């Protein structure tokens, strides 16, 4: 089928309205058709912008004066909460070896503790956060990503997955440093909705220490990893620290 795919079909695809068969066909086509992939990405980012725009609708008149400060404080509190959850989750799981991870597949995230601001963690929008260069952690991140994506593909869900790296975890995304570059390129090719995000602040820090940081071409840089994570959470994504 070489016909141009109509906007309506693409909208139905990003809204999860296509049946499994049709979705699969479209996903397969997206792999070869960069233009199509670009259209889907543009639609998704539009959708994300709309969600972001109404994530915190302004409150009505009576409390306007206090609201901005309060919202700011709430956002700070939220950020701290997420950090604490992430840190303590990571600390609690520091001894967990990857074999233990393998068997479990609770709604989304293996045996990892997931954080989500929605009532039910969204299995179709997940970010994995890597902040260590430990070989087993890198390995676990990639394994986990692949498992989630494969599972989604089997079930015909259109899943978006982001791997966010900061601190030493950024080594995973550095050209010439990453031990998994080939595998990552393969994964990106296979999964149109997989994104690699590196923290610019970390890059700046490494550069300041005299290291030359070059990212793999599949990677994009976000201003800060924490900012990326908080925004995604507000958009309803599920956060998992690997």
């Amino acid at each position: 089928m070489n016909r141009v795919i109509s906007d309506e079909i693409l909208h139905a695809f990003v809204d999860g309205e296509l049946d499994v068969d049709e979705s699969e066909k479209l996903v397969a086509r997206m792999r070869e058709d960069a233009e199509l992939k670009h259209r889907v990405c543009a639609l998704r980012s539009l959708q994300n912008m709309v969600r972001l725009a109404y994530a915190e609708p302004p409150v009505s008149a009576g409390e306007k004066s206090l609201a901005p400060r309060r919202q700011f404080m709430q956002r700070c509190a939220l950020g701290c909460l997420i950090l604490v959850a992430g840190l303590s989750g990571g600390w609690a799981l520091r001894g967990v070896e990857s074999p233990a991870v393998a068997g479990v597949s609770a709604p989304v995230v293996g045996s990892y503790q997931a954080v989500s601001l929605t009532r039910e963690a969204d299995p179709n929008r997940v970010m994995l956060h890597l902040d260590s260069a430990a070989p087993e952690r890198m390995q676990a991140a990639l394994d986990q990503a692949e498992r989630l994506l494969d599972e989604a593909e089997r079930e015909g869900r259109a899943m978006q997955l982001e791997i966010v790296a900061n601190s030493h975890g950024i080594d995973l995304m550095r050209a010439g440093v990453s031990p998994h570059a080939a595998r990552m390129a393969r994964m990106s090719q296979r999964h149109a909705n997989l994104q690699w995000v590196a923290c610019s602040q970390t890059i700046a820090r490494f550069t300041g220490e005299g290291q030359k940081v070059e990212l793999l071409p599949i990677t994009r840089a976000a201003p800060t990893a924490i900012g990326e994570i908080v925004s995604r959470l507000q958009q309803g994504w599920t956060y998992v620290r690997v």
Partner: protein
Amino acid sequence: MDHCPRLSNMSMISQLLFGPFRPSIEAMRPMLYRIAYAWCHDAALADDLVQDTLSKAWTRRAQLRDEGSLKAWVVTIMHHCWLDHLRSRRDFEDVDDLQDSLESGAQSPEACCDREQVIAGVRAAVSRLPMGQRQVLTLVDLEEFGYAEVARILDIPVGTVMSRLSRARTSLKGLLDPAMQQPAARPALRRVK
């Protein structure tokens, strides 16, 4: 720590009014408010609309057959409240005519790289959409209602849902294009103070 007196009073009143149906229905308040705000872009009006909707939902609770469709049912009620409100504005007789007439005079959003600006830009762009498109877009994007559900809520054919959605997103893309065309600006959208 952060309940303003007015809100907690209101939720106390609705607690009194609503008895045991409330936990589920009160829990819908933020969702309803988000949608209402996206429809009218006026905080006070959105508040009224939600209040109106919740009290109507309470009085009509016996009509709800299937607990599972509570959310869509409540939104349907809000849609009717919204239509009532639009009709009560003297200058609009036929709501179907609102399609093109209800565009606000908001400035077209400009390329921006600041998060708050993006939010303001998207809201301005959404508020420029004709009402029919705005409703479909917000129900699908903000609350992830299926097309069939949206069709039931707004009482229009599914084909209309799809075409309105398509037109809405196309115009939005047009309105926001400067912001979306700059890949370099994208990461900056995600910045959080």
